[in-house]
């Protein structure tokens, strides 16, 4: 479904990615692992069109998106839950969701009622503004907002960062439920424990390069990966 091939990019003159390969198939949950500053979020930014791709290719469902602006990538079916949540502060919860509703793309798997079902908490807060929500609620809203675009691939960048353990568990349960429905998901997170319960495949990035990739079983069997690339 998604094929990133030898993607290079950077900020200004500073190259950050040195040829990232990333493939995600239908219904697959893939993680992007690596220490801070290794290029995980940069990969997402390149994938979403927020950084120009210097070299390489990005293909999504057979469509070449390498040079496409962000809005076309979203319309093609890539839904991003960004780091830091970034809900619209002056829009109400409902407006945050409705403004982004993607009935305009034809596919209507996700609609307001279903979001309320998955996140009853948001229904209680539907008339509150984005900046009146707690961190956990904002995270739910950010996920709900991405789902309302009816993505074929959902990207979660640090979706549980800075949240209380109970709320984290809620978010993980929600992600598991999405997986059960066959949603393809790309996750970046620091809680490896939770990721190994969920993921099909892992991709480890170091210094802008993919240094390891394999299935969840292979990852669990080889402790040296965690020691080498992930522990501080």
């Amino acid at each position, binding site marked *: 479904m998604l094929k990133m091939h030898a993607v290079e990019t950077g900020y200004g003159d500073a190259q950050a990615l040195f040829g990232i390969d990333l493939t995600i198939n239908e219904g697959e949950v893939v993680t992007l692992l690596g220490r801070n500053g290794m290029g995980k979020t940069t990969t997402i930014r390149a994938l*979403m069109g*927020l950084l120009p791709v210097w070299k390489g290719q990005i293909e999504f469902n057979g469509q070449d998106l390498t040079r496409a602006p*962000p*809005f076309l*990538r979203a319309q093609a079916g890539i839904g991003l839950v960004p780091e830091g949540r970034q809900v619209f502060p002056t829009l109400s919860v409902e407006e945050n969701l409705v*403004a*982004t509703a993607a009935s305009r793309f034809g596919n209507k798997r996700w609609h307001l009622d279903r979001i309320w079902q998955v996140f009853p908490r948001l229904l209680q807060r539907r008339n509150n503004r984005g900046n009146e929500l707690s961190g956990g609620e904002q995270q739910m809203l950010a996920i709900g907002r991405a789902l309302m*675009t009816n993505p074929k691939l959902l990207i979660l960048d640090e979706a549980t960062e800075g949240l209380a353990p109970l709320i984290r568990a809620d978010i993980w349960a929600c992600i598991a439920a999405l997986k059960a429905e066959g949603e393809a998901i790309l996750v970046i997170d620091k809680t490896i424990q939770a990721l190994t319960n969920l993921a099909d495949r892992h991709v480890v990035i170091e210094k802008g390069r993919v240094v390891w990739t394999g299935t969840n079983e292979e990852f669990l069997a080889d402790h040296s990966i965690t020691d080498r690339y992930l522990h501080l």
Partner: protein
Amino acid sequence: MSGPLILSGKRSSFWPVVVLCLGLALVPLVAVLTKQGHWVSLTTQMMILALAALSLDLILGIGGLLSFGHAAFIGLGAYTTGILIQEGKGDLFIALPMSLVVSGLFAFVTGIIALRTRGVVFIMITLAFGQMAFFAAQALYAYGGDDGLTLDGRSTLFGLKLLSNKIVFYYLTFFCLAGCLLLLQRLSRARFGRVLLGSRDNAVRMETLGYDVFRVRLVAYVLSGMMAGLAGFLLANHTEFVSPAYAAWQRSGDLIFMVIIGGVGSLWGAVGGALTYLLLEEGLSGLTEHWKVIFGPLIIAFVLLTHGGIEGVVTRVRDLLDGGRHD
């Protein structure tokens, strides 16, 4: 630029709009009863500028784009109307659509360039385009140049001089203002308005959710320019005079003040702000010729003390009356 906003769902702008519209609708009646005929003309002028301020609030308040050349659209609408009247083609059904087309086209072309920039650059580019319109008007020697142009009369309606009647013209202006206010209120609550407002908060986020933010902003910019062009059409007819001053940057600055006094992004607040601004100007200039010395500090104090202009005050009063019914 984050004033209180009407879009949060719990704050309705229904009553302020009703009060504003009813008040304005009754002005001619009161003026006739109290034999203060000049009120009608004065209020007409105020409503025309309120319409221009309202149009600015769409892109400034909801879109978060500080256009410093908004008076250019008034000038374009006014000159289009003025020139057509001078050439004997001043019928409402020619002059009005032409004013809208010309100001809309100008907004489209300048918007395509200006909307690629942000922040201070956007302010400077819109100012530059505004000045271009101003100097172009000054260079129209055939139509008065620097001195402006006194018109032979007002637009006609299928040859009838209906608009020359003060009351008829008052209500024409009133319906233009009320209609635009209602249209923008509806639009701001529709997806278009929410996307525009969301883009103001975080344009990159809106892009990644699948919206072509540039296009949404361009539509808003053109719509806003056309509404200001409508104000220009009305202004030329009202004063039976057009002048480069209509497009001057000082006028653009006035419009920004009106929006800020009213409460940025609240739409009806822009109308209230314009009326307040012009009433103050009128009242103070009657007191002393150095009225600007009082006017300036008064405006600053008002903005500082009210936190969000008229709309902010009204909202807080209503919250008090509600007695904290919502958390």
